[in-house]
């Protein structure tokens, strides 16, 4: 019994010191970045962040949560910079004074997937009409249901189509895009997804893109520096450095060249002379159609 009485506290002491030494790494400055799960899953940050870390001798802690949560973390001042894709919510965030600087970065696209047989007959339609047709026919539609960027876009599309009907086969998963796609695949249902996740899941699921290529399906990303007035620990200097880095010509080119499954996923918005930078000002799904209050 004495053996145990001595061993336990000794063991605990060893663990505590081991923990202290391994985590007391050389005092690197730390930038906290909140982003969305789909951004993380695209793998783009895995390409962009390490270069920034090396160049600036900074450690970037990437916290990937849902869009709503990412913005909430920014609001609380628990992160220094927020990188999301929900224009309306971003504008509300800026209007409320939670951020001091916002920049457009890039865009990718959404698409509506469904069974290849397409029982609802939505292939080639515009997204708002497609959704209404799915609802009218009572077909199964799987939604994120989690206040994410994708979910917010779904809301906008329902609104554009004249409102969201209520029908029993509207399924809300409350989870990430990957799991939502898996569930939609199981149910052979319709689902709105970003192209990046679709490409990574192409070989795992049996759904086909039916509605693509519409201005309403553009998914622009914005990066925001959190207002340092919220808390002295906020590193606005590092945040600004990261934002400058992301909109720099070199990195914008890297974003353009980044491929998933052999396809360029993101379209940079800050390459000078690119027509996207200009047309983004007149984005098709514009805020003025909708109530100004954010989510």
């Amino acid at each position: 019994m004495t053996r145990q009485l001595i061993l336990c506290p000794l063991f605990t002491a060893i663990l505590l010191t081991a923990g202290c030494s391994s985590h007391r790494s050389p005092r690197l400055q730390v930038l906290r970045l909140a982003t969305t799960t789909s951004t993380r899953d695209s793998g783009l940050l895995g390409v962009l962040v390490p270069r920034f870390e090396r160049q600036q001798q900074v450690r970037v802690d990437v916290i990937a949560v849902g869009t709503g949560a990412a913005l909430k973390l920014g609001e609380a001042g628990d992160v220094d910079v927020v990188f999301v894709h929900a224009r309306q919510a971003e504008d509300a965030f800026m209007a409320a004074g939670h951020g001091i600087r916002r920049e457009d970065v890039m865009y990718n696209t959404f698409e509506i997937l469904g069974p290849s047989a397409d029982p609802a007959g939505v292939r080639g339609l515009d997204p708002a009409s497609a959704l209404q047709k799915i609802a009218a026919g009572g077909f199964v539609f799987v939604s994120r249901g989690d206040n994410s960027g994708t979910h917010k876009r779904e809301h906008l599309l329902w609104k554009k189509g004249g409102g969201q009907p209520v029908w029993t086969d509207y399924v809300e998963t409350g989870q990430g895009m990957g799991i939502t796609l898996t569930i939609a695949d199981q149910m052979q249902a319709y689902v709105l997804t970003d192209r990046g996740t679709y490409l990574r899941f192409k070989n795992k699921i049996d759904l086909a893109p039916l509605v693509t290529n519409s201005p309403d399906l553009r998914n622009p990303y914005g990066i925001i520096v959190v207002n340092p007035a919220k808390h002295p620990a906020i590193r606005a200097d590092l945040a600004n450095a990261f934002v400058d880095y992301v909109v720099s010509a070199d990195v914008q080119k890297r974003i353009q060249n980044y491929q998933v499954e052999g396809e360029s996923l993101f379209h940079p918005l800050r390459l000078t002379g690119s027509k996207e930078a200009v047309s983004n000002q007149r984005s098709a799904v514009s805020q003025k159609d909708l109530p100004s209050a954010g989510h």
Partner: protein
Amino acid sequence: MQLIWDSLSAAIQLVMTRDQAVFAAAARSIWISTTAVALATLIGLPLGVVLARTRFRGNRLVVLAFRVGMALPTVFVGMVCYAMFSRRGPLGPLDLLYSPWGIVIGELVLAIPIIVGISHGAVKALDPRVAETAWTLGAGPVRRWATYVSEARVGVMLAILTAFARCVTELGIAMIVGGNILHRTRTLATATALETSKGEFARGMAMGSLLLIVALVVTSLIGWVSQADERA
């Protein structure tokens, strides 16, 4: 069935290629949960013994509170810890949010009620002659309590194992307080959840199996140290 076979081959691949990220996550899980449980034992075991052996008003209420604590949802604990460790929160300056230590403290909150609850039960269930014998042999209080723990060692061992199991598999605290940050706070449990959400089911299951192996090793170790299975 295909998924099971795929996960088996994924598991073998993980081990053969010594997947750095996975092994790092495993080591981190072990360190975090072991520290939390060790601290919880140091705090909770004496508490459990005292609760079982001392009479005072409200003893039942305290025991009830710890038993209820055994069922704390991890997301709830995670959210409370987030509120505490947030920059705006009371413990903000301690910089615990998004660090492994934050997870240790969260898991400590999870583990203490388990240690207290189960060891209390184990000591309470001891044959009354154990206490009588200790008294009559003139043992002081510390010696007596050490005797109770020794006699109840099976229960104590189970308390520690249960606490460890709860800690090493929990998601809520590691996600919310830890942030699942690569190379910093990614545990085996959160890595498994991540792989699953990315649709990498085979890899996810392989990591889950690794978690089971970790549990097997720790269980055997604790069993050996406590000598609980030797004949008393």
